[in-house]
């Protein structure tokens, strides 16, 4: 049964197999349980999948998570919000700036803290640079998953420059705790703006280089095109957000649809998954990308490719933010024992992997009564069992890699 479904969905495979002669030869196979992970190079961290296989066919894939569980939410209800910021670094550790940002915004909404104009621009610059750095890791490791080693080296070469910028701003290279309640911890160092512009000018042409290196590679398209397809209605029902939702053709991005911070001041487009021949929007002056044949909306290739296009727009946003960067304070005066009023707030922001949400319940004391983190990877991963059904064993790394999960955020 499952084999028929697969043969229907993969025409190439069907052409290679003479089904009638196979049936005549009565090829019997046995089901086997394969344990993939928790230490497996292509599961991106400690994710364990139990696969029920029939030969090369995967009949069912059950994700088991929790190997990195630290109960961050329990820690959250024992610390003041500014003490919890370093814990948010460790949720999605590839996008620590974005985590700091969303958590700070949630606390500021609850406690009514004002943020100076300069700090808001610095936050946007950092959040978008981190988005590029995060997408670079995703791009590089996805190449590794698909057997291409070179893109990984390219990606990490450029990511290193972003980390140098972060290091100049806050001293840390992975867990920044830079964006904090009321602003950012330090002002930008001398020469940061120039160095940042230099990097953007260097980096923007590289994206096309990556595309030529990996995105349009025929082997890569064969591995990822039309694999792990998610329909738009499914994506919404399963609570998918970010790239996983947009690759299915849903043009939804919190930065545009429910703008927060000062995102409404910048000009940028949000790319979505397109059928072959489609041309995603890119800033003026860069080579126009084109969706190649052999792909379809909502597949692994589109999820991968959206990250490449999003990097163009993050560059555009950082440029505009650098242009508009005003002088002034980088942090408002926030008391250390900031009292959180009774009540609750739910706030979501657009992270590289989707919508990170924090629900904070205050009870009048400086320590929140309850902190809930809604990790985008957690929700995105929950559809894995649905789409890893009736595919080939080799498709599993392609699908899991394209969802781009960070286990620190799944397990919290």
């Amino acid at each position: 049964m499952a084999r028929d479904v697969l043969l229907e969905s993969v025409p190439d495979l069907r052409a290679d197999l003479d089904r009638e002669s196979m049936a005549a030869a009565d090829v019997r196979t046995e089901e086997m349980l394969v344990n993939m992970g928790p230490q497996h190079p292509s599961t991106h961290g400690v994710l364990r999948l139990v696969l029920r296989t029939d030969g090369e066919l995967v009949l069912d894939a059950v994700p088991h998570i929790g190997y990195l569980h630290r109960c961050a939410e329990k820690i959250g209800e024992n610390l003041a919000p500014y003490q919890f910021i370093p814990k948010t670094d460790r949720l999605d550790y590839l996008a620590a700036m974005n985590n700091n940002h969303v958590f700070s915004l949630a606390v500021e909404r609850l406690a009514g803290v004002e943020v100076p104009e300069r700090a808001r621009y610095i936050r946007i610059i950092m959040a978008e640079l981190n988005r590029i750095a995060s997408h670079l890791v995703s791009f590089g490791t996805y190449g590794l998953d698909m057997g291409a080693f070179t893109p990984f080296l390219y990606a990490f070469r450029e990511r290193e420059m972003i980390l140098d910028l972060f290091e100049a701003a806050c001293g840390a290279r992975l867990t920044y705790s830079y964006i904090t309640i009321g602003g950012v911890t330090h002002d930008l160092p001398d020469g940061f703006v120039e160095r940042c512009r230099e990097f953007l000018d260097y980096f923007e042409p590289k994206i096309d280089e990556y595309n030529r290196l990996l995105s349009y590679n025929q082997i890569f398209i064969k591995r990822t095109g039309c694999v792990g397809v998610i329909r738009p209605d499914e994506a919404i029902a399963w609570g998918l957000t970010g790239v996983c939702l947009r690759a299915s053709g849903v043009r939804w991005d919190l930065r545009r649809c429910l703008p927060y911070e000062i995102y409404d001041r910048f000009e940028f487009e949000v790319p979505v998954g397109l059928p072959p021949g489609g041309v995603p929007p890119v800033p003026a002056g860069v080579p126009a990308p084109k969706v190649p044949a052999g792909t379809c909306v909502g597949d692994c290739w589109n999820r991968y490719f959206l990250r490449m296009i999003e990097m163009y727009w993050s560059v555009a946003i950082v440029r505009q933010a650098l242009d508009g960067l005003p002088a002034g304070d980088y942090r408002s005066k926030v008391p250390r024992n900031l009292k959180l009023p009774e009540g609750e707030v739910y706030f979501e922001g657009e992270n590289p992997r989707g919508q990170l949400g924090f629900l904070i319940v205050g009870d009048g004391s400086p320590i929140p009564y309850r902190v809930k983190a809604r990790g985008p990877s957690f929700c995105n991963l929950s559809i894995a069992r649905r789409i890893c059904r009736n595919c080939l064993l080799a498709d599993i790394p392609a699908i899991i890699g394209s969802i781009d999960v960070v286990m620190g955020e799944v397990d919290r």
Partner: protein
Amino acid sequence: MSPEQIAEILKARFGDAVIAADMGAHPQVIVAAGHWPEVARFLRDEPALGFNMLRSITAVDRPAEHVLEALYDLLAMTPPEGAPDGYWTARHAFAVRIRVDRGDPHIPSVAHVWPAADWHEREAYDLLGIVFDGHPDSVEDHDGLHPRRILCPDDWAGHPLRKDYVFPIEYHGIPGTTEYETPNPVH
């Protein structure tokens, strides 16, 4: 649609099943646990509401009131009209709160309404011990029929996010932290 209007629609349709409404910073209604699946289906399917995305389920322990709460954050996303490649819009956001007795917390599952609830409900059981009846991924053990744990190991005892949770002294021979005498801070 404003949160007040949503609350009005729900009150008109379900009467006493909608216990209270709070139109503060986080607009929400409190719904009786027994009526939750039908309210959920109405929230999703009623064209005027159209809450197609379940964003998050937050469970909160309130031992002082002897209550466990589940807070469902919902969002209605609308496709663009006319231009197929336009932006989707956020019609409205709303939240539903279910309050159940802390001694015997049971809430009907809504995983068949929003599949996203599957993992969120497993997490709420795992960390706070709310039993979601009719959950598609349930197991039966000495705690009765409940959703499968998701973050903690299957044989973990207790629910860590309860306010009175005490960290175990050991787990399969792995010593726990014993140097801290106070189990949890008291709010």
